[in-house]
């Protein structure tokens, strides 16, 4: 998109300069006040961008100012407690690590599999394929707390009946980010030019051999970027977990497959701390936010680096 921007503006500049010169002779000047109005308009637009960026900066600075006093190793090793002197996120961090590990295990094969089917096999003529596509788009917009309801009614209770275990939270989060992974993986697969497939098929490779040895390797960077972005969403997601027992007060590291011991996760713990009245506990919440944002920033930078490093243009 940005590549054809330069010549376009140049063309626009030349064309409008020519047109102005031609019109100015016969029709006179631009109406009065136009120049001033244009300047004000431009300033307003800049202000809009500025306010949005200022909001971002204020958010980051606020968390840092409130939480910097608590930034130490105790934050990671400290245990769940409402006493701000000793409060930390150990159980929550372990919980989040378990959650995310299971989410990755589920979401990568399922998401990439669905994307391959939709891009490589599904014929758009068939109504069920169009239904799946529309369905994926809609699922991406379902509020996260509704996934929490799904998890409560179907996974914790109901058909799967796992109880309030961490693994139930993992399944719910996996379903929540699955549409994001599918959409990103589809885009990455679609970006592989058809000539690659045709070349492979013409040499006698089967459909699956073509996908496995030609299409997927070429699409891996794009798919990975999408997966990382989806996972970083799962890391920060608290709302559905509230319904799945994650808000319980635990002082020991969670057991992923136990329904009796209770569990928690980093964003849920931050929420609990932020909503507590005790003096000083909010600083711990702020420090937790800094920790979480730092992890997310690392993940996102890695995704951007991946995209820039391995992105192929055909």
């Amino acid at each position, binding site marked *: 998109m940005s590549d054809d921007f330069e010549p376009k503006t140049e063309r626009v500049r030349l064309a409008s300069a020519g047109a102005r010169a031609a019109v100015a002779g016969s029709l006179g000047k631009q109406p009065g006040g136009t120049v001033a109005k244009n300047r004000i308009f431009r300033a307003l637009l800049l202000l809009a*961008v500025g306010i949005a960026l200022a909001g971002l900066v204020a958010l980051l600075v606020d968390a840092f100012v409130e939480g910097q006093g608590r930034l130490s190793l105790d934050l990671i090793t400290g245990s769940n407690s409402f006493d701000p002197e000793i409060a930390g996120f150990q159980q929550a961090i372990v919980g989040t690590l378990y959650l995310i590990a299971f989410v990755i295990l589920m979401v990568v094969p399922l998401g990439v599999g669905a994307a391959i089917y939709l891009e490589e096999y599904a014929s758009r003529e068939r109504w069920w394929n169009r239904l799946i596509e529309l369905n994926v788009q809609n699922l991406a*917009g*379902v509020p996260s707390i509704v996934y*929490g309801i799904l998890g409560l009614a179907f996974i914790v209770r109901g058909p799967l009946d796992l109880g309030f275990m961490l693994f139930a939270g993992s399944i719910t989060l996996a379903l929540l980010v*699955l549409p994001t992974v*599918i959409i990103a993986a589809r885009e990455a697969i679609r970006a592989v030019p058809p000539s690659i497939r045709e070349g492979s098929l013409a040499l006698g490779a089967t459909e699956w051999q073509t996908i496995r040895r030609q299409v997927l390797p070429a699409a891996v960077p794009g798919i990975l970027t999408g997966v990382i972005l989806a996972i970083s969403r799962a890391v920060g997601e608290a709302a559905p977990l509230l319904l799945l027992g994650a808000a319980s007060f635990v002082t020991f590291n969670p057991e992923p497959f136990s329904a009796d011991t209770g569990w928690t996760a980093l964003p849920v713990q931050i*929420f609990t701390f932020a909503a507590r009245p005790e003096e000083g506990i909010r600083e711990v919440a702020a420090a937790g936010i800094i920790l979480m944002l730092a992890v997310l920033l690392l993940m996102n930078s890695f995704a951007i680096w991946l995209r820039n490093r391995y992105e192929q243009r055909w």
Partner: protein
Amino acid sequence: MEARNIATSGAAGLPPARRLEAASPRYGERAIKSFLALCAGLSVVTTTAIVVSLLVPALGFFREVPVGDFLLKTEWAPAQDLFGVLPLIAGTFNVVLWGMVFAIPIGIGAAIYLAEYASPRVRKIVKPVLEVLAGIPTVAIGFFGVSLVTPLLQDVWPGEFLGGPPGFFNALAAGLCIGLMIVPIIASISEDSMSSVPGGLREGAYALGASKMRVALRVVFPAALSGIVASIVLAISRAVGETMVVLLVAGNTPNLTFNPVENVQALTAFIGVTATGDIAQNTIEYDTVFAVGTVLFVLTLIMNMTSIRFVRKYRQIYE
């Protein structure tokens, strides 16, 4: 079948034609394809499961409480058997309204700047930075509301305006925080749709002597309108579904008002609070979660479908 017979008989005397079908039935290929189709089908299963898990308890709820009462009565207090959902819907839209008042001008302004004014270099930096905002966990945005936005509003509030400064929980601060969260959605999708307006339209207007502002507002903006509307509808849907910010900032008092300084409870906040507490299964209170969840699901579904439709429209016109 007949065509093939003619072909073979026509080729009599020549060596038999090579068959183009594979030598084996390729069961492995078929198995893989079925597995991949199952992966894709899982999304339909998920949707069905969501609908079933909402509707079955919700139907139980509506056997006890008439739908008319639920949708039209104006008091919400499940503990006292008052089940009028309007205060919760008002709570949601009280917050969303102030969010949109903030986010629509900022988001569209940023989009016009990025699409029409910014140099490619500036755009390449500013756009991803704005998108960082969309990736910040909402619990962090809620914390920002409690620790900075609400106190700031209380400090600068002009006296008794609208009945005095906002309380510790208030709809306005929650709205502003949610607004900040959805600015990148509006800016990003609107910018995409403005950038896909063909250059010829701009050039034509410039050639007629239009100023840059005129081109942006009278040519590009209307041409990109369906994408812009899509971005706004999608942003409203996100705002309606947001939970952590309203839980932390807007409060938990069902309140039928659009006054921004008041403590309100949104649909999502009710679900979050109620389902976290210890309530027994198969009670009417437990079922309210699903009834309210159904309202939330239907509201966001309608908005998402509308948004998808608008996006398709602008793709069709210019791509």
